[in-house]
């Protein structure tokens, strides 16, 4: 579609969406939505002329008209589908969304302890929950770019997770956004709002997956607020259809002495972009962002991270690994800000890539902006192939070449997989990844 035409299709979609809201369009929030769609109409999607999108051309997203989803339809979703995408039966509390709508039938939160709430965003909005309304968008501005503008314009559904001060939740909460593609491509706008109170503890899993292969567009925003001394363990799996578009923006704000650690595994999407921003706002915070990308075919998977050291004595670690096959492309951009006064900052960033084919490429860029003098910041990037010495060692013991390649590729990935917090989820991912490594190549479906 021509430039103006695709914007028009989202505006038309917004009008349909607005009608489906019935009386709700009189709420103060609706003014925010209107402002956001107006913003989108003026800025559109970012282009490669924007510094933050230089290597990720999202023009293919503009070429398809994606209609908003207006009601819940759980057809085609089964427990087996959920298991396939790594949702262990049993352990975690689970919230399931289908094409962006909360699924009552697949969600379960029975036994949730006092002081922990999992609520659908729609119901929080219907109650005009002041706290939720004030936190929504507090970390991700609608005007950030065309994608966050669209997510805000179509704001309706999502997960609101609140853990009160000093409450410790032992079992993980898993939020699953399932897409069910159809002949008519749809867009959904997942939204997650997490508040971890002072000295609370939470293990959160986010999963983005599809029921089947197909073209659709997931435009997600996650906001996580950690109070003083809170600990949030975050695992994330993105296993969208390889024909789908996945644009996700996650923002984290950490108060004094809090600890946020995230492991994000990206397997799906024709174009997938994760933007993660963590603001270390109080002293003595720790922030860990790990990522694993497996891509093949013509997939493009982009990880952009920003760690903003705004207070002294904070530590951050980043380990991003990619395994790229076929003609796939990977992008890693890791920005670290150390603000004036953020003394004793200790920041470490590592990016490692293995290229399994001659046609796969990676663009990797560390970006350190340091305005304090007593800090330790290190970064390193490596790009290479599988190690020939290791390969020969395995083969010299009788292991076939293809199996040996898969073992080494898996070992490279295992470094991140082993850090996944939730044990059953880690085991599921372990199996899922082994199934994707086949005869020295990456299979895009398993």
């Amino acid at each position, binding site marked *: 579609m021509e430039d103006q035409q695709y914007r028009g299709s989202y505006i038309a979609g917004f009008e349909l969406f607005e009608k489906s809201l019935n009386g709700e369009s009189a709420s103060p929030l609706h003014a925010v939505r209107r402002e956001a769609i107006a913003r989108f109409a003026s800025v559109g999607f970012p282009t490669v002329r924007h510094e933050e999108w230089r290597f990720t051309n999202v023009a293919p997203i503009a070429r398809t008209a994606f209609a908003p989803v207006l009601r819940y339809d759980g057809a085609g979703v089964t427990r087996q589908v959920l298991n396939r995408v790594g949702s262990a039966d049993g352990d975690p509390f689970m919230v399931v969304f289908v094409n962006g709508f909360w699924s009552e039938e697949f969600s379960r939160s029975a036994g949730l302890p006092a002081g922990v709430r999992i609520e659908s965003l729609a119901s929080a909005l219907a109650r005009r929950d002041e706290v939720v309304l004030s936190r929504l968008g507090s970390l991700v501005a609608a005007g950030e770019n065309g994608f966050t503008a669209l997510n805000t314009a179509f704001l309706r559904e999502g997960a609101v997770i609140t853990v009160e001060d000093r409450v410790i939740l032992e079992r993980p909460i898993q939020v699953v956004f399932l897409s069910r593609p159809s002949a008519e491509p749809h867009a959904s706008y997942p939204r997650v709002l997490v508040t971890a109170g002072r000295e609370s503890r939470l293990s959160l899993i986010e999963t983005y997956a599809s029921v089947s292969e197909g073209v659709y567009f997931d435009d997600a925003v996650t906001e996580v607020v950690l109070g003083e001394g809170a600990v949030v363990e975050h695992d994330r799996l993105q296993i969208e259809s390889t024909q789908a578009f996945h644009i996700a923006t996650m923002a984290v704000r950490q108060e004094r002495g809090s600890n946020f650690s995230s492991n994000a595994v990206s397997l799906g999407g024709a174009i997938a972009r994760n933007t993660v921003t963590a603001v270390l706002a109080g002293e003595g915070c720790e922030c860990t962002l790990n990522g694993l990308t497996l891509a093949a075919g013509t997939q493009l998977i982009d990880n952009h991270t920003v760690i903003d050291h705004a207070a002294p004595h904070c530590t951050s670690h980043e380990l991003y690994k990619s395994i790229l096959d076929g003609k796939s492309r990977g992008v890693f951009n890791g920005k670290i800000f150390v603000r004036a006064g953020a003394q004793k900052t200790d920041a470490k960033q590592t990016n490692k890539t293995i290229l399994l084919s001659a046609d796969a490429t990676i663009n990797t860029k560390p970006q350190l902006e340091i305005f304090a003098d007593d800090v330790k910041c290190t970064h390193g990037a490596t790009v290479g192939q599988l190690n020939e*010495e290791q390969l020969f060692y395995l*083969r010299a013991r*009788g*292991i076939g070449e293809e199996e040996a390649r898969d073992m*080494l590729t898996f070992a490279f990935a295992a470094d991140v997989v082993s850090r996944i917090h939730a044990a059953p989820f880690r085991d599921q991912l372990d199996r899922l990844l082994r199934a994707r490594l086949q005869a020295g190549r990456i299979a895009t479906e398993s």
Partner: protein
Amino acid sequence: MLTVRNLHAGIDGNEILRGIDLEVNAGEVHAIMGPNGSGKSTLAGVLAGRPEYQVSAGEVTYEGKNLLDLAPEERAREGLFLAFQYPVEIPGVSNTYFLKAALNAIRKHRGEEELDAMEFLALMKKKMGLVEMDQDLLNRPVNEGFSGGEKKRNEIFQMAVLDPKLAVLDETDSGLDIDALRIVAAGVNKLRRPENAVILVTHYQRLLNYIIPDFVHVLIDGRIAKSGGKELALALEERGYDWIKEQGLPVGA
């Protein structure tokens, strides 16, 4: 078992092996000695199928097969084992996982049932005692963070588990203390059976106090300059290699 004829091999056009002849029969132990850089590891590597070496002339027959036609994994499955001079660290692959995959690949090739986890564990337990390996080392990634001696012992442990027909040990004795040397020697002597053979590449005659070789060959500048019995090793220990160099190469080499 193994016949090497006029083997020439090198790397990037530089010839390292310049006409090797060697005959190893079942039941024999051959020691290959020689100064640094004479081509001992190259010979071991060419036998195991190290891909960076190119063979420019000659032939190698192993158990009636053209060894040079086989991929490294096929050689291993046919019973050839190379104990590496510098064992490789493989982070992320556990020793047990790796060794089970290796053993089962070999068993499958021989038409034997693959071992399940329990059977494999029992076998490991048995062989661990033999080389005095800690369980802890086996649970760790292959050779990662192992000391030099632990790496060498791990090679012998793998050899004990895989039970090869022809073992080629590339300076497995170098850098070992007496205890470790004794363990390595015990492992090799265990393998010493009428149907097996061993090629010991070594720099020192020390190991040969524990493993008595049937033949000793001296490799100099990519050729076998002299062959003899175990007494040759003692002569080398006393006199070094220069006297052999001065004698010149055997006729026809």
